[in-house]
């Protein structure tokens, strides 16, 4: 849980999940979907504040995301509604 004042501190570096770099730890910032979709993602471990990693992404198809040691396929549609920023302050170059 994070209060309001902490959220948009690094809004500039926010990206849509479909455009985020591959194989890089990413911190989920927002999920702007309906309650049902948000809940569904939450029980798979994908929710604001969580660190995830995009393992595979090809044009048009679903994304393959690694979270909490599991691999989850996410449809394009829902991925457009997820924004992320570089997680753990780790730069992709350092990975």
């Amino acid at each position, binding site marked *: 849980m994070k209060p309001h004042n902490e959220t948009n501190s690094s809004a500039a570096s926010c990206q849509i999940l479909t455009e985020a770099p591959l194989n890089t730890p990413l911190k989920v910032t927002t999920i702007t979907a309906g309650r049902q979709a*948000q809940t569904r993602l939450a029980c798979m471990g994908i929710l604001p504040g969580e660190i995830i990693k995009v393992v595979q992404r090809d044009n048009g198809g679903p994304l393959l995301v690694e979270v909490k040691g599991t691999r989850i396929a996410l449809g394009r549609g829902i991925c457009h509604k997820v924004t992320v920023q570089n997680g753990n302050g780790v730069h992709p170059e350092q990975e």
Partner: protein
Amino acid sequence: MPPFFCPGKEQTIRMADQIRIALAGNPNSGKTTIFNRITGAHQHVANYPGVTVDLKKGRTKIDGTRAEIIDLPGTYSLTALSEEELVARNYILNEKPDVVIDILDASTLERQLYLAVQLLELNVPLILAFNMTDVAEKAGFEFDLPLLSDLLGVPIVQTTGLTGEGIDDLLKAASELADGIIKSEPKPLVYGKELDRAINNIARALEGTKTGYGEDVPLKWIAIKLLESDDQVLEQFEKTGGMSENVATVLLDATKRLAQLYPDPPHILIAEARYGIISGAASETVTHSVERRHDFSDRLDTIFINPLFGLPIFLALMYLVFYITFTLGNPLMSLMEVGIESLGTGVSGWFPEGTESPIRSLLVDGIINGVGGVLVFLPNILLLFLAIAILEDTGYMARAAFIMDRLMHRIGLHGKSFIPMLIGFGCSVPAIMGTRILENRRDRLVTILVIPLMSCGARLPIYALIIPAFFPPHLQGPMLWLIYFIGILLAIVLTKLLRSTVFKGESTPFVMELPPYRIPTLQALMVHAWDRGKGYLQKAGTVILAISILMWFATSYPKTQVYSEDYISQIETLEQTFRREIVDMTDEFDGGLGTTTIDELVYLLDEVSTSDISVYPHSRTTDLDDLVFTVWNVQRIRSEVSDDLEAGGLVPGSEEYIRGEAELLDVEPEMIDMAVYYLDTVHEPFVTGTDEIDNAMAREELENSAMGRISRAMIPFWRPMGFDWKIGTASLGAMAAKEVFVAQMGIVYSIGETDEESTTLRSKLQDKYTPLTGLCIMLFMLIASPCVATLAITKSETGGWKWAAFQFLGLTAIGWAITTLVYQVSSLFGWGI
């Protein structure tokens, strides 16, 4: 090390007669494997998320106490958003099992504990089973289970489902928990200051009000669910006269306050808090020494879901599945056919020959042929299920859904919908059963409704009859392809249509775990395939049996009392002519007929010229014996030579014919002439004549039967599509099972027993109808009314006749409209006439 860890042992004795243990857990946590280990029951094990939908029960004994084990659906959570979760949650809430065991895959512990926290919220007598700890430890995890058990306040047992290790300890713990020897007292969960305050306020307001839940359901749980806007909890309030004003106000205040403080909605805040609790506990009790390695499973995925190779590999595997199903299945299918046929013959043999027994007809024509017609597909279906079981249990099926999602997404369905649709090309019944893998009801209903458009195996005989009858060889392949294609295209259009009308709304996002690849055990595969095959058999034994009987009645009754022509006397006339000619023929025989009566002679000659008598001994002392002997030999030579020629019969006077006759050197040439004369001029017209009359009677009987009458009453329905009542009758028959169409066409065209290879029926169709009608028949058979087995399974899988009726009426209306359109427009322009 003690076998299990629990917050403290205490001796109190409460021996129950029977304890009930519910197994909860994520899909692929090894829950079903443990269930099978405990109960030994033949159950479904699948390495594919959410395959177990039904509640499965089994029995065992723990130290002499009977225990009932309930296998809850595999779920990630206990929301009201999917059927599985509702089934699991409602079982726990309503049936109150003595013990709930949550089975966790230790290697993905944090995600797995999310369900455990929700079980803790429900305050059920919980035991955690840490499954596959060996795998997790190999992956570098170390667990401090006694500490974790203390932190959460619940007993924890280590198990290895595959070897069965730890299962006895698990059962012992369950029985001790039920007896009160050990305790499961979840520590209060801390969600954070603001959420705790909100939950407590709402729970206090709920005290003494009607919630729609039993008194033992924790008020805090209801409070959490109200904050999450849980549909089912809200519904329960509605049902019990609405929420009290006080509760509503407190709830509104709480959500308002949370909204002021945090950007995320309450259900996300609660989820975050749950993961907070989990990581708090895990940080103290779990260490992982190495980062998640790119293990074998990940490496396989770089091949199987490769953007480039994934699709070709998938298509190749699907081709292999169908290839195996049909190449291996067809010989077995022929075997089944032979078996069913001989069963029919055997049963017929119980009845005195020549009598028309309605019971014989019901047993053989109705039940054995009806149910048998469906049973012959059993080998193919079992093989298909076995192939699917392999794909599922290895974990490949989730990858297939991943690959197909891109295409399926465009038509508004899930990647997962693809799997049942594919099965639909074999048979709609298992395909509709297979839609259980879809968690969203809307997705499931749309898929179920369009599955009959996937042209199933039973429709192939219809196409195989019609296409060669009306289309030149070079068009036959493309025609068949076109029909399948029309079905797929229509399914796509219909899905889009349903998605934007009846099933409007946000399509559920595609979220699916790709479980690690596993090597399935042979036993699991067999159990898995058989489990589904059994469902198919049950259908054959119940619905299809009932329908077969009904269809038999509809085609056999009411009996025709008065025929349009006097068929009986026609047959009598034929018989008289036949006898007279035989008498004339044998008039000048040396020694006359001797002791043989004319009846015996007629019988003998008829027998040797029609039946396959392998041994015809008899001394040849008289001309009469010679004749019978010669007729038999000519018949034998003809069939042997014609078998050799494969040309179908011999031209009298041809070289082979004479050579054949030469074998009968020891009879006089006149005798050969007489035998040939008898066979071709006396016997042949008699047989064809009586067959024609029999067939005409059968046709008239069908015409007068309930089915024929209904079809004729429906002429206004058939006519716009260019159908007459005969095609109508066959179309009605096809509702029992699609392939019945061919047999029924045979009857209305007086061909007798018919299969799709029948050239006689084809030439009759050619005479009577145009290629356009042929196309229209195929279109109508493809689209309109799914067979009753499909409707029955739709009913049972959707939970009521409503959707089955919708499917029936919708598809029939569309089938009628499209066929009518095609017929009318083409007629107008003179195409295909």
